[in-house]
């Protein structure tokens, strides 16, 4: 019995062929289009922003977007970490460091046409200070609580006491902010994206749109989830947030007060969670740039003609040691042995992107207070073994925690770094028990509550003050370090309220030296997260704080 060739199958093949050809043609046509008007710049983000009101944000993905539309009183110099004028061209404080006066730029207009005045600055700060209900939750007001403490009326005992006292506007272009106690957080804190200024009209609108404090929900207020209400002073304004497609669209603001307007008409941040998908999207021409490029991809992308500028470093990766877990770890000789055992240069050479450096202390050298005179610990396996022998800890066993499925700016591939460190530790006779945990939230919780002997963690600075690094870890006992050292604790508590910047710097150097002598953990490296752009764009100045200003971007 012969089987006739079926007509259906032939039709199907034909249809498939037509479909493929058509799709080929169509995508070519699309390419032509985007080449033609070339005014939409698409940037691949690793995650969705939490809100388009920066006051509610606490993560880089949120701030990357809002930074293009909102500005702060003080800014960082392009490509650096020094504080420079933002919306205020000058700022000063009284001697005690409790009154901060800002001289505002003239002629600044918000996206809704309102003008920036000293009064507006006060409205903004008073808004944050008077936050109530759900706003007092750390999820919504992390940075306010970290920098200015609590609120006018604290509703929970877990909220810190307020350090903010009040704000006055003596004239049109001046604002004075008063705080109760001087702090290492000032003036750096005024540069935080979370304290960007909003238009007074927008603030009124926000007030009517409270986050529902009802029941056990934490709800972001509606205005922060949808374009239309928020208004800042930046070179772009948020015009659309399409959550289904994971795209935030910003359009050029033509009345921008700064000298130059944005180089592209439209800026889109598109969420592409997978690292390799972001790279392929760039290679396929679907996006024009993306952040957190895997180090291995840098050379490939460069060979293909993509631009991969190198940022400065502003972060630190360290191996934390929790001393109270084992008596051996409380012995400084053992901790020194660990430091000598690790080949940190090898990690820099083989794992970190260009620009990465091995760390000698718990802050990168771009932060004021970095000391050249700290005790250093060279890679020396033999010395490590001797130290272990002297301490009587030859058969040391360490439970080593490391995170999986995560890429951090200071740690491109944690599992690989762990593998290398494990080999180093085993080379000096230490037994390593691996304890991998998912980053969210197991790893955070386990390391913070003291659940491992050693672990990998790091920090990216918010602004250029060493307290932002050191204070986070060493101004008192924490379970994540598990030690008592009053010398270090006192030093940092003291520096926290020292108003004079120069004095602070000297104290930080002293603290760094004391810390590296005591060696609570091993600082490993600082590395710049890589950012890539397509060949046809003029690059923005890349920033160690990852605060790129996309207004500088334009198409060639």
């Amino acid at each position: 019995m012969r089987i006739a060739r079926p007509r259906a199958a032939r039709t199907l093949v034909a249809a498939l062929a037509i479909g493929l050809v058509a799709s080929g043609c169509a995508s070519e046509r699309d390419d032509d289009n985007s080449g033609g008007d070339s005014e939409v710049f698409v940037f691949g983000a690793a995650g969705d922003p939490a809100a388009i009101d920066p006051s509610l944000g606490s993560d880089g993905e949120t701030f990357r977007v809002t930074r293009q539309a909102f500005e702060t009183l003080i800014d960082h110099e392009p490509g650096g970490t020094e504080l420079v004028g933002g919306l205020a061209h000058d700022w000063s404080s009284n001697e005690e460091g409790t009154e901060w006066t800002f001289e505002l730029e003239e002629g600044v207009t918000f996206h809704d046409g309102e003008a920036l005045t000293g009064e507006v600055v006060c409205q903004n700060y008073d808004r944050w200070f008077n936050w109530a209900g759900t706003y007092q939750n750390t999820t919504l007001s992390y940075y306010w609580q970290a920098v200015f403490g609590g609120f006018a009326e604290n509703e929970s005992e877990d909220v810190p006491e307020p350090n903010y006292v009040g704000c006055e506007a003596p004239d049109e272009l001046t604002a004075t902010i008063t705080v109760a106690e001087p702090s290492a957080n000032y003036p750096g804190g005024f540069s935080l994206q979370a304290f960007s200024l909003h238009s007074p009209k927008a603030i009124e609108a926000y007030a009517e749109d409270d986050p529902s404090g009802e029941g056990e929900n934490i709800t972001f207020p509606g205005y922060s989830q949808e374009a239309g209400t928020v208004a800042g002073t930046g070179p772009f304004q948020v015009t659309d947030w399409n959550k289904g497609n994971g795209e935030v669209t910003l359009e050029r603001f033509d009345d921008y007060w700064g000298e130059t307007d944005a180089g592209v008409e439209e800026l889109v941040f598109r969420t592409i969670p997978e690292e390799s998908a972001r790279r392929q999207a760039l290679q396929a021409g679907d996006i024009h740039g993306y952040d957190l490029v895997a180090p291995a991809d840098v050379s490939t992308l460069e060979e293909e003609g993509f631009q991969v500028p190198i940022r400065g470093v502003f972060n630190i990766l360290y191996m934390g040691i929790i001393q109270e877990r084992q008596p051996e770890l409380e012995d400084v000789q053992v901790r020194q042995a660990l430091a000598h055992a690790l080949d940190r240069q090898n990690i820099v050479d083989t794992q970190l992107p260009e620009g990465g450096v091995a760390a000698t202390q718990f802050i990168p050298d771009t932060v004021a207070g970095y000391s050249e005179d700290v005790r250093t610990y060279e890679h020396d396996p033999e010395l490590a073994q001797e130290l272990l022998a002297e301490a009587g800890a030859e058969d040391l066993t360490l439970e080593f925690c490391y995170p999986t499925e995560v890429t951090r700016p200071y740690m491109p591939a944690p599992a690989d770094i762990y593998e290398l460190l494990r080999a180093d530790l085993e080379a000096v006779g230490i037994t390593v028990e691996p304890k991998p945990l998912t980053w969210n939230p197991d790893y955070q919780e386990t390391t913070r509550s003291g659940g491992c002997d050693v672990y990998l963690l790091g920090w990216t600075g918010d602004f250029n003050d060493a307290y932002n690094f050191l204070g986070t870890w060493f101004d008192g006992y924490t379970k994540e370090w598990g030690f008592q050292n009053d010398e270090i604790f006192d030093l940092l508590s003291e520096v926290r309220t020292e108003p004079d910047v120069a004095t602070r710097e000297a104290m930080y150097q002293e603290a760094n030296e004391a810390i590296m002598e005591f060696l609570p953990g091993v600082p490993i490296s600082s590395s710049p997260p890589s950012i890539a752009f397509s060949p046809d764009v003029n690059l923005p100045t890349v920033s160690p704080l990852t605060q790129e200003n996309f207004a500088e971007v334009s198409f060639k």
Partner: protein
Amino acid sequence: MLRLVVRRLLQLIPTLFGLTVLLFIWIHRLPGGPAWALLGERGNEAARRQIEEQLGLNEPLLVQYGRWLRRLLELDLGNSVKTGQPVWDEFTLRFPATFELGVTALLFAVIIGIPLGYFAARRRGSWLDVTAVSGSLLGICVPVFFLAMILRSIFAVNLGWLPSGGRLTTGIDATDVTGFAVLDGVLTGEFDASWDAIQHLILPGLALASIPLAVVVRITRASVLEVLSEDYVRTAESKGLRKSVVRGRHVLRNALLPVVTTVGLLTGSLLSGAVLTESAFSFGGIGSFIRQAISDRDYPVLMGFILFIALLYMLINLVVDLTYGLIDPRVRVN
């Protein structure tokens, strides 16, 4: 018939209720809480206590469950801890993407699978048969995430034929009506938006289709073989009916019934595949959202989404059972 439907629907209630209890206990056993997930490196003990207090996580589990259930009866599923938006809104926002993706995958599976299965059966034992069957089986053996990367690498990066991910090209003028990108374009007359959405569906659809394809081929083949051996086919053939008539009217039509019902039952495995496919293609549907919710300990989202999926799965099962009953009177008796 109606009574049967009602009875079966009522039977769903205790199952779903039991599911919510088990699910609630289970997801609250996930170590860690949403606080660390929300704040990352910047989290601390005070923040954790504060967040847990706000979310009511410090109360006994039973109280929490009672409150959740009471609100469910008011049709309120609570808010996502991560995004702060109502769970229902998050679901309706993301469901269309997953639905479109699932339908595309099933279409690919059916369009490729049925002819393949049919010809494999007609030439049983030949090399065509072996190739078709092993070829389709090869599909399920390739890890979806790897397949996704290969497809992207070939068709998006090297050939540049199709987009590498996402649902729509950035900047395309598409009006959002229903959330179903393809349908919206048709409704508003923006056919280029529809076409764009279809292009974005092809690669993830193919990757996801690798799972149901094998099943469709196998069931088609088995069912065609069975029908071919039936007496009425032999009778028809020996009567001298034209081959095309025998094949079309007798073989295919009868063989397709089990295929149709099996396709309905594939939704479960499609959703599993969607978790990986959506992640790999940045296709913002419910699969990748749930996966994220697990690591964020986003309890309300997990409860709400999984409940929906379970309900959907059970309803599809029910419909499949009932259609089976309609088609095959022997089943109805039982």
